């Protein structure tokens, strides 16, 4: 068996590859649903209705897509530079911690200043958290995958300490949760009687900005060049380490913004379960999007729909909602394979 590069990839192939990949995953996951003894077709209908079947369902899916767009962007930017940031989850919590520290009474500003301020301090916290592994990578060649993964555990334990200790809200009847974010800092609601908040607009705008930066600016070109071929980039006079550090600050900042939208938008206070793995799902989002920032919006909507749909399907059909995690992980692998097959062809010979 041998892999040969294709001379030319037709457009239909590039477009259909992720769709075919996801379809295959949904078919394979169907086997697991049948194993659970649920009717396949009705289950997928229940999943779809749970995700997009009503105004409320759509609003909830958009609420869930908001942090996924941001963690997806974080992974997309970093992976472009081959900076393997798997620490999105930790950076998300860093952003959430920063919002709780600054946004619950320490500083009072009018809303038009307060909300940008919270995003800035949140993003700074996340960027700094990723700066440490990035410096270890550029200075000491320490693999960033392991350090970012390990830091996730450290940050989560730190948040656990704060919420069970000094930051525990005395008004919360003993639950480990932070004080509520000041009214000025709350992201405005977009649709009455739903949880949909302005975080969605902010994350879509960020996706467009990141797309512009990545495709139209020198910074974007440098990030892509470093990821594509560091030797050539060095030869072209691009400062490799500086670019990696810059990428880390952007990527960590984006993931942390997801923590900001969750604390200041969805929940309005910090808990230990603000993220059911948004940081990790962001990796699948970025891969499904082919690392394209605009594609991230679509991919985030898809996965948000899968998770919300799986929740309502599990209630209706008695299928564990871990099926959503299976679909996410399966899609991550299958899309990667499909995208490669648009660039290579397999040739079998004896």
């Amino acid at each position, binding site marked *: 068996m041998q892999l040969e590069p294709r001379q030319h990839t037709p457009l239909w192939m590039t477009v259909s590859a992720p769709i075919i990949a996801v379809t295959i995953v949904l078919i394979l996951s169907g086997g697991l649903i049948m*194993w659970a003894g649920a009717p396949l077709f009705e289950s997928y209908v229940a999943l779809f209705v749970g995700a997009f079947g009503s105004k409320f369902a759509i609003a909830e899916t958009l609420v869930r897509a908001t942090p996924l767009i941001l963690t997806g962007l974080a992974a997309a930017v970093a992976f472009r530079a081959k900076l393997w940031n798997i620490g999105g989850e930790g950076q998300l919590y860093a952003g959430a911690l920063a919002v709780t520290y600054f946004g619950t009474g320490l500083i009072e500003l009018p809303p038009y200043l307060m909300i940008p301020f919270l995003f800035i301090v949140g993003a700074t916290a996340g960027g700094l958290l990723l700066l440490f592994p990035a410096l270890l990578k550029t200075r000491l060649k320490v693999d960033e995958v392991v350090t970012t993964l390990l830091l996730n555990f450290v940050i989560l334990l730190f948040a656990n300490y704060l919420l069970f200790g000094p930051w525990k809200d005395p008004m919360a009847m003993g639950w480990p949760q932070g004080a509520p974010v000041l009214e000025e800092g709350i992201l405005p609601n977009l649709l009455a009687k739903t949880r949909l908040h302005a975080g969605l607009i902010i994350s879509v705008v960020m996706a467009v900005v990141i797309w512009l930066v990545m495709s139209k600016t020198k910074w974007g070109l440098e990030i892509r060049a470093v990821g594509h071929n560091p030797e050539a980039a060095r030869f072209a006079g691009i400062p490799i380490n500086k670019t990696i550090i810059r990428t880390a600050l952007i990527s960590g900042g984006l993931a942390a913004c997801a923590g900001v939208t969750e604390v200041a938008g969805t929940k309005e206070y910090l808990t230990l379960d603000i993220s059911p793995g948004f940081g990790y799902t962001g990796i699948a989002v970025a891969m499904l999007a082919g690392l394209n920032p605009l594609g991230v919006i679509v991919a985030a909507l898809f996965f948000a729909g899968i998770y919300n749909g799986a929740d309502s399907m599990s209630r209706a059909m008695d299928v564990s909602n871990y099926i959503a995690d299976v679909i996410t992980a399966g899609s991550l692998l299958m899309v990667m394979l499909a995208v490669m097959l648009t660039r290579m062809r397999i040739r079998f010979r004896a």
Partner: protein
Amino acid sequence: MEFFEMFLNIGFWAATIRMATPLIFGTLGELICERAGVLNLGIEGIMTTGAMVAWMWVYQGGDLWTAVLVAAVFGMLFGLLHSAFSVYMGLSQHVTGIGITMLATALTYYSFRMMLPGVTTPPKIVPFENYAVPFLSEIPVLGQALFNQSPLTYLAFILVGVVAYVLYRTPMGLAVRMVGENPMAVEVQGIDVYRVRTAAVMVGSGFMAVGGAFLTISVFDAFYFDMINGRGWICIALVIFASWRPGKALLGAMLFAAFDAIQIRVQQSSSTLIPYQFYLMMPYVFSILALIVMSRKAAYPKALLVPFRRGQR
């Protein structure tokens, strides 16, 4: 003074060896993969799968040693999937590994929920009993700590020797090390690089799964969600700490487990001056420190992370 008395305590040393066992399995498994040039980030998920399937096997009435085998087989299946992507297709080892961890974990949790619907407290099994080695276990302190352990712990120690022997003293081990250093040269010798790498990743993944199984059918008697809790990532740090050598991997795992045992005892004996969460952070912080300390000396296998494409230079 109390701090030093701890080291004279048999329980302390026995705990250290017990806690080192899953790390030994995981580190050896990762070491085999990396020696063949494949970083296996699927370890965390594969350990989770091993922990669940072994436990489930015993819970359904199977015996303990078969459960170990079942765990290893499931680990090898995920190893095969990993190599299909990372070796045969030459895809990013980083993304493949994270994908395998996510998939293995999700499938494990889904299956557990489906097979035991509606259980709130995890049901229990009868785990491995400690086996006191005749004579040796009667040596004071050392013997009682070292030779009154779970049979799986002895297996882990034996495997360190076996892996070291195979890697350094057999043609098979030479092939494994060579595909991790210079796959081209191996290909020229007429050895199939893909097959050697796949075999190494499968065997390594089997080891990882047994490491997970140790937790559910030897230390504890139940399966809990999130019970691997980063042990897989710590193993990856330990491989680098051990400079890809089995003997040093054993040493690293023991050192690490000793720190963990100290941490737990200090946490229990000291007042509530330092919150317990900071003690729980220690293993992760130590792993990062170990990576920093070793960074200058780390001699990675030269072809690690480099996909091999036949017929290409």
